[in-house]
């Protein structure tokens, strides 16, 4: 695994998982990010914490698109917080912000994510997810 990133997956409230991203989002860190995401398969909403993001490039944006495609397939929603103004700008330019909802803080993100409707694709799995 690339040492330019540390990923941590944790469950927040019922059905909401948080991935703390500490480092880069680039093609070099693809395995780490997708591994962390794979651990969220029981969640119905995934929150990306970009508070410790140091560098993201166009390859990293492509990676987020890949993750979005998978999330949609699993009926999961994606949220994010902690983006710097610069990367928030890039999310808007690329229109990633239309499918990854951006929030100002972790509580905001989790509060909204917890109320996301359960999507049909993976509804039973999401209900079976034990609370924290």
């Amino acid at each position, binding site marked *: 695994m690339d040492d330019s990133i540390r990923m941590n997956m944790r469950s927040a409230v019922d059905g909401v998982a948080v991935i703390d991203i500490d480092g880069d989002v680039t093609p*070099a860190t693809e395995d780490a990010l997708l591994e962390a995401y794979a651990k969220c398969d029981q969640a119905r909403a995934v929150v990306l914490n970009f508070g410790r993001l140091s560098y993201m490039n166009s390859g990293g*944006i*492509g990676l987020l*698109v890949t993750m979005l495609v998978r999330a949609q397939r699993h009926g999961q929603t994606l949220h994010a917080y902690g983006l710097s*103004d610069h990367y928030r*700008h*890039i999310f808007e*330019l*690329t229109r990633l912000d239309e499918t990854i909802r951006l929030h100002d803080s972790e509580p905001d993100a989790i509060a909204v994510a917890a109320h996301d409707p359960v999507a049909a694709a993976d509804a039973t799995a999401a209900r079976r997810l034990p609370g924290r």
Partner: protein
Amino acid sequence: MTRRLERWRAARARRQTTAALDDEQPAVSAELDASPVDIAADDPALAHFQYAGGPVDLDTVSFDSAAVRDLRAAGVKLVVPLVAQGELIGLINLGPRLSEQEYTSDDRKLLENLAGQAAPALRIAQLVREQEAEATERERIAQELRVATLIQQNFLPRTLPDPAGWDVAAFYRPAREVGGDFYDFIELPDGRLGVLTGDVTDKGVPAALVMAATRAILRATVQNVDKPGDVLARVNDQVQLDIPARMFVTCLYGVLDLETGRFVFANAGHNLPCVGRRDGAIEVRAAGMPLGMLPGQDYQEAEVSLEPGESLLLYSDALPEAHNERREMYGFPRLLGQVGKGPRGATLIDHLLDDLHSFTGDDWDQEDDITLVVLHRRGAAPANHGRTRLAEFTVRSAPGNERLAVDRVVAAIAGIALAPARLERLRTAVAEATMNAIEHGNENNPELQVEVEVFAEPSALLVRISDHGGGPIDATAEPDIEAKLRGEQTPRGWGLFLIRNMVDDVFVTADDDRHTVELVMALEGDDDDVPR
């Protein structure tokens, strides 16, 4: 084998009314229609006649053939093919015998003998006539060429102006069939020089005449009209009146201020002027329709300033549109690249002609006139037009090395006041451009370097990033998030999109062995604080 259709005209049946021929001998009917019958080149009768090996009775022909129908309609009964060296060169057509009896085998034998002797004689006569016609045509073309060349060269300036502080050079080489290129210099009041280059879209005498007329109209117009855009508008309206249909003139007219080096020009569909600067070449754009197409046109004006040591190049199509043996085109990127790295002044012309020769090889058939005009401002160039080079370095082409480039660019501009949001955007643009150079241009080959130069200008930063990739830069479809989510586009492909949105200007140039991306970031803007 080029066969003229004319040769397939069946040999003409002659009206024969004399009784000189014995009734027992075959004779041509008096009723026979004497007009020649044209046979189409794909008519099956041609092969049939050619290989018949003797007279053909049209009554025995069973296949469908327009020629046979025509021959029958003309009253022909028997056809005697004239074959020379295996080629069908004509037919002797005969109507029914006057005695109204069938042709006998003796008749046929006689006719066959006659054809055997007539065919070579006819062939020789045909060859002689063809050669005469060709010689006449050659002479006509040569004569026209002489006239066209005469007109052309009479109207090209015999001497070049020699203004103080400037070198003026011109090169003109006509194609085998003279094209309609022209150039001219007009001395104007107040230390200004009018410069004209043009090209008539035709060849030979008509083009030369239109060229001469256009030049005369323009020379008259500049006596009363000052602005190049107005000059071309007037000339266009005049040329409109006389120009033959489907002929028009591309033309660039500019006024050079010999004191300041300012060149203001307008362009009627001609090639854009190119300026060789100290560190590269630029093209200057001005739009306008060719002269003689539509009346009442407006001609945009543009200007460029020539600093000491810089050269302005005006040129006609033949150079950029030259093709080599592989049918590749010389092209504008190569031209711009050569002007960029070539010498300045009159030797730029030699440099371009040498490069053209190395591109086309020795056996090039020059398709069009070549015209090159160079205006060079003498003197040493000032230091980069107020541009200072802050750094120049290379990074190896390995994934992730874009961050080395970013760090070095940031270090190089540490002393420049740039709003933090702008700095962030520049970082991303440099990273993306370097990544493209590493991955696409240099194909991750660690032997190849990405070259990075950083310049400061009075109000902007310029970062130039070059790789060793050849050919055009792949400009894939604009990335679209929805298409990507639907799987219609790959998830990646955001690089160039990001670059364009990060900086104030992006210039991409590509030639056979190099891509260069120039990122321009203004030091200030209305979006300094808010990054969006």
